[in-house]
């Protein structure tokens, strides 16, 4: 799992590349929170276009990143999920609470 950040004020882009499961979730969340703390962006886009696999461990990561953004008055959007992660998002109902751009 690779987490690539790109900040162009006030937007932070975080690109997740690889597979997000329980094994990679803690480190992924740590990297995301680190970037949020460092840049304190107004908007954060989680780019999932190269995330090839996600299970329910990813849901907790997304929700915690969103909570973090909201605490500082910002917003989070999930961008371009591939079909397998997208299916997990809709089966879990989380697509109703998270802003997803297809």
């Amino acid at each position, binding site marked *: 799992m690779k987490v690539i950040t790109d900040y162009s004020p006030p937007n932070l882009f975080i690109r997740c590349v690889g597979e997000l499961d329980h*094994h990679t979730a803690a480190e992924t969340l740590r990297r995301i929170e680190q970037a949020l703390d460092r840049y304190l962006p107004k908007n954060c886009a989680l780019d999932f276009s190269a995330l090839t696999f996600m*299970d329910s461990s990813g*849901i907790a990561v997304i929700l915690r990143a969103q909570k973090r953004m909201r605490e500082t008055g910002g917003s989070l959007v999930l961008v371009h999920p591939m*079909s397998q992660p997208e299916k*997990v998002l809709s089966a879990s109902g989380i697509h109703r609470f998270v802003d997803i751009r297809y």
Partner: protein
Amino acid sequence: MKYDNYIKVEFPSKSCNEALARSVVGVFASQMDPTLGELGDVKTAVSEAVTNCVIHAYPDSVGVIRLRCRVLEGDLLEILVRDWGCGIPDVEKARTPLFTTGGEERSGMGFTIMESFMDTLKVRSRPGRGTSVVMTRRLSGKTAEG
């Protein structure tokens, strides 16, 4: 039960084996000529079941996880994931969406996802003895797509 083919593997409950289990099932299921979508569904369900063994069944130790895949009657895939860990006191409650004993790091959606990605899901558990999860999925596959 009658089967056409099977595989049985055991591995320690280390989180790095979650990806391994998904791959094993993916390779095994390939002989049934599934679609990419079907393969993704099955891998997702296996990831959930194996992760539960790693996190919940053996919270403070490394135990054994058994994974068995069988081809039943041609296009029916059966997957068993079993552990000899702490067990689940109330299976019905555990299967409720959002129920988790795992705190903020978990979503409580594992069983819900297994249910919606597979055709059937059976969970048998005895506290102190372990848990077995049996799931089936009919892979109509590429032939059905034409």
